[in-house]
Structures are given as structure tokens and as C-alpha cells.
């Protein structure tokens, strides 16, 4: 005890510096997370009372026995994989394009155009996309019919709703991943490519075997960020689909929120804990896989 105090007292000014940060982290981070985990072990009806009744793992059992939750969870995982692959492939392709010496003029304009949606309020962006996909107002179907192409079901058909929100989310997020790739491309060792060119490597070979391995740090960061991002997909669902049609976009975070709204606190917080465990588990896995894959 005295040992800790002897260390703390001379450094009290640092505790003063850190105090507001610590207070906010505890009040709006650590405490509510612990509270949420606690509520997940209580009966919903008593969850917010002073003396809640504990039900052990009953909420978790109920959640895993709920076919809607299992369907929601598998949809969330499939969507996450699709979104991560689509966003990172697109971002990598665009970053490679914009980094090439072919595009010296107007380069900043292209970067700004693709990055602007990242800082655009997501609600505003998704509201506009919702109406762009609309059958009677939307520019998407009007453009397709002007080009004599078949119509696009947009948000009203179960066949196209996933693609629709994927497009809207790619528009909002891909610029960020592009930025990370561009930052990494800017610091790579260009002498290696010159050496490979002298050895007769084609442009594709230079990109695949010389440039891509150097993008390992950006790839790892982007995979981890995108995995966390898309596992938590929420705003796009609230704005564009409300989980529909036919529960087709009812991802875990939205489903849990609906249960919370209905006062089913125990199950909602159990789902929150499960999603939290998934986010941590999958992003660590993504980190490992990303770390290895890019080595080859």
C-alpha cells in the first residue's frame, strides 16, 4: 500500500491531467459495458430495478435458441465478409490507379471526390441513396431504363437489397480504406520496382510481387478496421431498410436494438455481449490472417 502511495503522490500532477479522461472513460465506457454484461444475466422485467433477479445463462440460452437470432447472426457474418472483400478490393484498385504516374493531373480532384463521402454525415448519405434506389423517384432505375437495361429491385426486393446497401456503404466507407492504401503506397521503396523492371518484370509482376508485399501494413489495418466496421452495421439499416424486406437486412446490432426497444433488456444485452466477443475474436483473427497472407 505505502509502496503504491509513494509512487502516486509525487506524480499527483499526472493523475490530475488524466482525471477528466479517466472519468469519461469510466462513466461512458467501462461502467456501462460492465452494466450491460450484468444485465445480460438478469430477468428482463427486473433488469433496471435496484435488486434485479439473476437468471444465470438463461438469456444466452434463449438467444441461441431463437431461430431469428441465428438467421440474423449468419446474415451479419455473410454481409461482413462480402462488404470487407468488396470495399478493400475496390479501395486497393482505386488507390493503385490514383498512385500511378499516369494520373498526375487532377489527381487531387479524384481523391477528394472519393473521400468526400467519408466525412459526409452517414444519415444524409444513406437518405439520399434510399431515394436514389426508389422505384418512382430514383435516378438508378431511371438511368437503367434510359440505357434499355432491366430494372433494379433496390431496397424492395430480397434479391437486390443486400447489393443495394453494400453499394451505399461502399460509397460511404471505401474512401477511408483508399486513403490508408495511398498513405502506404507513398512510403514504399520505389527502387525495388526499378530493379524489377530492369530484370524484365511486367507491370503486373511488379505490382503483384514487389508492390503488394509492401502494402502488408495497410492491408492488415484495413482488414481489421473493415471487419469491426461491418460487423457493427447499423445506421444504413435504420435509414434505408428497417431490417427488411422480410428480415433480409436484420443484422445483429439492429435486432438487439429492436429487442431493447421492446423492453427485452436481458436478451438485448446478451446479444450485445455476443457481438462484442465476435468483434474482438474476429478482428484478432483478421489481424493474424492479414499478417500472414500478405507475407506470401
Amino acid at each position, binding site marked *: 500500500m505505502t509502496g503504491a502511495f509513494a509512487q502516486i503522490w509525487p506524480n499527483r500532477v499526472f493523475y490530475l491531467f488524466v482525471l477528466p479522461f479517466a472519468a469519461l472513460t469510466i462513466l461512458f465506457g467501462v461502467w456501462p459495458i460492465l452494466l450491460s454484461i450484468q444485465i445480460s444475466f438478469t430477468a428482463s422485467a427486473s433488469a433496471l430495478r435496484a435488486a434485479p433477479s439473476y437468471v444465470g445463462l438463461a438469456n444466452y440460452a434463449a438467444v441461441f435458441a431463437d431461430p431469428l437470432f441465428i438467421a440474423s447472426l449468419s446474415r451479419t457474418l455473410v454481409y461482413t465478409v462480402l462488404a470487407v472483400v468488396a470495399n478493400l478490393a475496390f479501395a486497393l484498385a482505386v488507390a493503385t490507379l490514383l498512385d500511378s504516374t499516369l494520373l498526375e493531373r487532377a489527381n487531387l480532384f479524384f481523391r477528394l471526390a472519393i473521400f*468526400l463521402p467519408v466525412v*459526409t454525415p452517414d444519415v444524409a448519405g444513406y437518405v439520399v441513396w434510399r431515394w436514389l434506389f426508389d422505384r418512382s423517384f430514383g435516378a438508378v432505375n431511371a438511368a437503367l431504363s434510359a440505357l434499355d437495361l432491366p430494372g433494379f429491385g433496390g431496397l424492395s426486393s430480397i434479391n437486390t437489397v443486400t447489393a443495394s446497401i453494400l453499394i451505399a456503404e461502399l460509397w460511404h466507407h471505401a474512401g*477511408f480504406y483508399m*486513403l490508408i492504401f495511398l498513405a502506404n503506397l507513398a512510403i514504399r521503396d520505389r527502387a525495388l520496382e526499378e530493379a524489377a523492371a530492369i530484370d524484365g518484370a511486367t507491370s503486373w509482376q511488379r505490382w503483384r510481387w514487389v508492390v503488394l508485399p509492401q502494402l502488408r501494413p495497410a492491408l492488415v489495418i484495413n482488414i481489421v478496421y473493415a471487419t469491426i466496421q461491418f460487423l457493427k452495421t447499423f*445506421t444504413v439499416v435504420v435509414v434505408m431498410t428497417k431490417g427488411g424486406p422480410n428480415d433480409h437486412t436484420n443484422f445483429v446490432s439492429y435486432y*438487439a436494438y429492436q429487442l431493447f426497444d421492446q423492453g427485452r433488456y436481458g436478451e438485448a444485452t446478451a446479444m*450485445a455481449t455476443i457481438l462484442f466477443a465476435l468483434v474482438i475474436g474476429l478482428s484478432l483473427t483478421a489481424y493474424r490472417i492479414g499478417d500472414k497472407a500478405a507475407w506470401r
Partner: protein
Amino acid sequence: MSAAPRSWAQVLAYGAALVISVLFLYPYWWMLVSAFRTTRAVMTDPLRLLPEAFDLGILGEIARIGGVQLWVYVANSFAITGASTLLGVTVTALGAYALVRKPDLPGFTLLRYGFLVTIMYPYMLLVIPVYVVMFKLGLLGSYAGIVLFLALGPIQFFLFEQFFRAIPKEVIEAGVMDGASEAAILFRIVLPMAMPVTATVTLVTFLLNWSQWFPVLVFSKTPESYTLPVALLAMNTELGANFQGIMALAVITTLPVAIVFLVAQKRVMQGMAAGAVKG
């Protein structure tokens, strides 16, 4: 390399970049044009590239939304975003500085892990237990509650942490040798050096907090404390939605951040890339 393939490749590259950029910018153009056109006109010709007339009449129609004056939402957005940005930058700078200078002090490692776990937690699901905490603290429905919750964020913390770590030890040790107090070291030596990073963090925080909607919605008791994105969401959810009004409100919600971003684009893009790379 011969000139011909290079110019062909160049044409292709410019073509691709141009098509992608136009597709990314088109939603903004469509939103802007639709804000000037009547709902009926958009239905007959959704693709029109210019409005029939530059009619600002829609502003009169959305002067009140959900029983609250439009200017209240605008004022709320600036007040809540401004206050949470100032508070967040100050609190995060001090906190990150202390954690970097003395990482081994009792409790500091634990605090850092607590913060990292918080930013990993699904955001929308964190807001729900925070609602309970706000209720217990009596902060529900107050501006203070919203501002306090929005103050902390990962990019802000990582940018400051990265900057403070990069300060050479000799600089601070020189201050210690001269007998300067820790407060003097912070305010006279470190913070003047940190002005550029502070400007970057302020910009990025402002842009991120302007977009926040879910905490504002959940912690508000009435629409009186809604910000622009929340008002936009509420309007979009109404039955028999006023399409032209929604597009006009989307323009008003987007315009301030678009201007700030375009004016300070270099700093914003560098800041967001650096903050992410550290995380």
C-alpha cells in the same frame, strides 16, 4: 517505353478515374438539384441535371420540422458539435499526455485497456447501457449528457498519443533539469509544439461529431435537443414523406462539413490516415 502504349494507358486511366469520381459525386448533385425541384417534377424526370428554376421556396416549407424551428436544429448541431469537440480535444490531449509520459504509474495501464475495450464495443449497443448510466446521473435529456458522451473518440486519442510519443526525451528532460514544474513543461514546452496536431484533431473531431446521430436521438427527451442528422432521420421516417424537404434538409446537413473538409482537406486526410495507422 514507347510513347504510344503510355498514352493509351493514360487515356484508360483517366477514363476510369473520371467515371468513378462522377459516380461518387452524383448523389450530391442529385440531392442538390432535387432540393430545388418539386416532388412531382422529380417523379416525371428523375435524371434532369438542372432544376427548372432556382426556387428557394422549400426553405419556408421546412422552417418547422416536427414542431421545432429549423434554426434550432442548426444551432444544436453547431453547439453540440462545437462543445464536444473543444471538451474532447482538451480532455484527450491531457489524458494521452499523462499516459505517454508515465505509462507505468499504478492504474494507467488499466485505464488504457479500459479505453481500448470501450472503442471496440459495438457503438450502438454501448449507447443503450449508457442510457441507464445517464438516467442514474440525471443527465438524460440534457445537452451536457450528449456533449460528455461525444467527447471521447479513438482517432483523437491515437493522434495525440502518437504525437506525444514522438517528442524526443531530451526536450522534456531539459525542462526537468531547469527545474520547471510538470505544469510548466506541459504548457510552455509540449503544448506549443503540439499546436499543429491539436488543429488536426480539432478538425477531425468536428467532422466526426457533426455526423453523430444515435446518441443524440437516444439521450434526447424531446426533439428540442435534436441535431440536423437526427431531424433528417426523423423526417425521412415520417409517413407520406416530403421528398423535396428531405433533400433540402440533407443539403443543409451536409454543406457545413463539406465546406470544412474542402477548405482543410490536406490536414483532414493526413490526420485521419495517421490516426488510423496508429490504432
